[in-house]
């Protein structure tokens, strides 16, 4: 049995670490849940294009030859040949070229795509792809703070989250057997929320432990690596890192022309040599040279982890394996363990089941931090009450406003910035920059509104805003379908329709929450911050706009 004083101690630890991290973790979990569908969102946001199917795989050799001849830089940087035909793949081949820049200055890349005209000539165009999905991932990783500080900040938050997790479990242990899975639905709302908070937290505990450890490690990667280098390896890490990257480096061109093996045959060769690799695209380096190579990243059946580091390299002339040290089955045990940790963080295993499970776990995690903050506020009220009704203290009112503003502002901001992908396409110059502007404007505006009109009132307004912004996602697709002249699009693939359907269901949830919150603020206990009754009766309204909305 755990001593009562230890439980009390850890309750305090849980409360304070939780309150400190709650906001950031809500954003990280909500945006993180969406990144489980990063690819469908990218496909939803990508405008109609020439498409991969415009050039058959049999015609790909001609296309590759033309690109290599007309764009020498693409030969060296790598020409990507897409295999899947998703909407976010603008054409059969894409590549990057350096932006014009001063020597020695950092520079960006221009994205190109290339296809064949009906007369067999090359049609190549520079076009920036939508970075909406990457932006949501940025919000997930750094809550909107610029790098590298956002990463360091989230590393500290993740560390405290790990502590909050263990402290929460210790707090709950004594009553776990008695109370577990007992959801006391009834008059005592706070009891019910606490039960729900505990059930959600404990059932998802393995997920949360995995996320806390991996998020700390991933966010603090570069400081941890410098510390390792200085204290443990004493300079050896850089050498090992170099060796580690060797299998990923393409062989140098030898300057002699070679006959390239057609992609169809290359894929056949790949299947013979590495049957379990699932290629998504091929990257040709030094196309046309005798030493040309093709890199094939891809996940391998039967292994945790995705394609981000693994894969094989083939000769583009003979199709023989040049090396396959980075594919999961050949990775050294430490690399495999590290990749497994990463896969556990990103949900890269067992396919769609785990993707959906991680999506729901991520959302439930976001709810965990939201409810945790609200529980703290309610506990404050109970402690302060001692008999009669009390005024809410300043700190609880501020925390209430901040919780509502940050959490709902993040939700509404992400939904609206997704919607903007279709409405603003072709109407603004730098759409990717607009995605950021829209998100931050909605996010900061929501926080300001929450402080101006108080947690109770603003929660209802902002929940309706979330519902409206989210339902705008499927409505935009519907509008595109009904009014083709607007220049928007409605893709027909299951993945992109799925985005619309999930957004519609999400909007229904937000609307339901708005209705429930409205009921609570008008009929719930008057001394709660979730009530407008006392505020209306005792103090003259300070916020005319909010009263008008009532």
């Amino acid at each position: 049995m755990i001593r009562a004083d230890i439980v009390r101690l850890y309750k305090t630890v849980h409360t304070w670490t939780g309150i400190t991290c709650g906001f950031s973790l809500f954003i990280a979990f909500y945006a993180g849940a969406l990144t489980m569908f990063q690819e469908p969102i990218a496909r939803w946001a990508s405008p109609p294009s020439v498409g991969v199917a415009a050039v058959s795989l049999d015609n790909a050799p001609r296309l590759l030859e033309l690109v290599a001849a007309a764009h020498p830089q693409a030969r060296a940087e790598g020409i990507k040949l897409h295999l899947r035909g998703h909407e976010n793949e603008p054409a059969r081949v894409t590549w990057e070229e350096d932006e014009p820049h001063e020597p020695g200055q950092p520079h960006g890349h221009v994205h190109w795509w290339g296809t064949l005209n009906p007369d067999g000539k090359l049609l190549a165009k520079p076009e920036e792809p939508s970075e909406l999905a990457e932006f949501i991932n940025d919000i997930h990783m750094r809550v909107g703070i610029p790098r590298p500080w956002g990463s360091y900040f989230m590393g500290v938050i993740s560390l405290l989250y790990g502590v909050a997790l263990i402290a929460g479990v210790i707090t709950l242990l004594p009553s776990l057997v008695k109370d577990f899975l007992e959801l006391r639905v009834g008059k005592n709302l706070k009891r019910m929320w606490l039960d729900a908070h505990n059930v959600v937290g404990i059932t998802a505990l393995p997920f949360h432990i995995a996320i806390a450890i991996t998020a700390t490690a991933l966010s603090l990667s570069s400081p941890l690596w410098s510390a390792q280098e200085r204290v443990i390896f004493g300079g050896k890490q850089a050498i090992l890192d170099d060796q580690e990257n060797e299998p990923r480096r393409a062989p140098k061109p030898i300057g002699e022309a070679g006959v390239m093996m057609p992609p169809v045959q290359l894929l056949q060769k790949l299947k013979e040599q590495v049957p379990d690799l699932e290629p998504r695209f091929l990257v040709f380096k030094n196309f046309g040279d005798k030493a040309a190579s093709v890199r094939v990243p891809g996940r391998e059946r039967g292994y945790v982890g995705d394609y981000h580091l693994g894969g094989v390299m083939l000769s583009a002339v003979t199709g023989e394996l040049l090396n396959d040290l980075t594919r999961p089955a050949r990775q050294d045990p430490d690399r495999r363990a590290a990749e497994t940790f990463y896969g556990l963080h990103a949900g890269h295993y067992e396919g769609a089941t785990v993707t959906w499970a991680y999506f729901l776990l991520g959302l439930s995690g976001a709810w965990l931090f939201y409810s945790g903050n609200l529980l703290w506020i309610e506990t404050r009220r109970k402690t302060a009450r001692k008999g009669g009704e009390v005024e809410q203290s300043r700190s609880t009112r501020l925390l209430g406003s901040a919780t509502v503003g940050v959490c709902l502002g993040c939700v509404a901001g992400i939904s609206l910035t997704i919607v903007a992908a279709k409405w603003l396409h072709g109407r603004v110059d730098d759409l990717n920059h607009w995605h950021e502007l829209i998100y931050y404007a909605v996010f900061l505006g929501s926080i300001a509104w929450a402080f101006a009109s108080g947690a109770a009132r603003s929660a209802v307004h902002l929940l309706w805003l979330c519902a409206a912004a989210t339902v705008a996602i499927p409505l935009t697709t519907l509008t595109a379908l009904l009014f083709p002249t607007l220049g928007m699009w409605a893709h027909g693939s299951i993945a992109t329709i799925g985005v619309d359907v999930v957004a519609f269901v999400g909007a229904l949830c937000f609307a339901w929450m708005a209705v429930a919150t409205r009921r609570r603020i008008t009929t719930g206990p008057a001394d709660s911050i979730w009530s407008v009754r006392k505020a209306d009766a005792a103090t003259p309204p300070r916020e005319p706009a909010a009263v008008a909305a009532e």
Partner: protein
Amino acid sequence: MAGDIRPDWWGKASAGVILGFGLALSLVGLYAYLGPGGIDAPGGRYSLMRYLEAFVWISVFSFCFLFRSGRSAWAWLGAANLIAFAALFACRFVFFA
């Protein structure tokens, strides 16, 4: 019978953060030298090490509040750090130099 546990929030938390990190680095460093393949093991190792470090760091930070006082947290964790770092530097500069 253990005596009362004093909260000593700042004393314990600082020990947990600072000495927890030290312990994470030194213990995982020992794994780097003494684990399979030794210090010249392929580079997957240092990628794995950050996850192990995070695990040790979170564990020490979480359980440091069990110490009776901030002072005892610093004393015990400090001693553990000394031993672990001594072993690590012995590996780095003496046994595997």
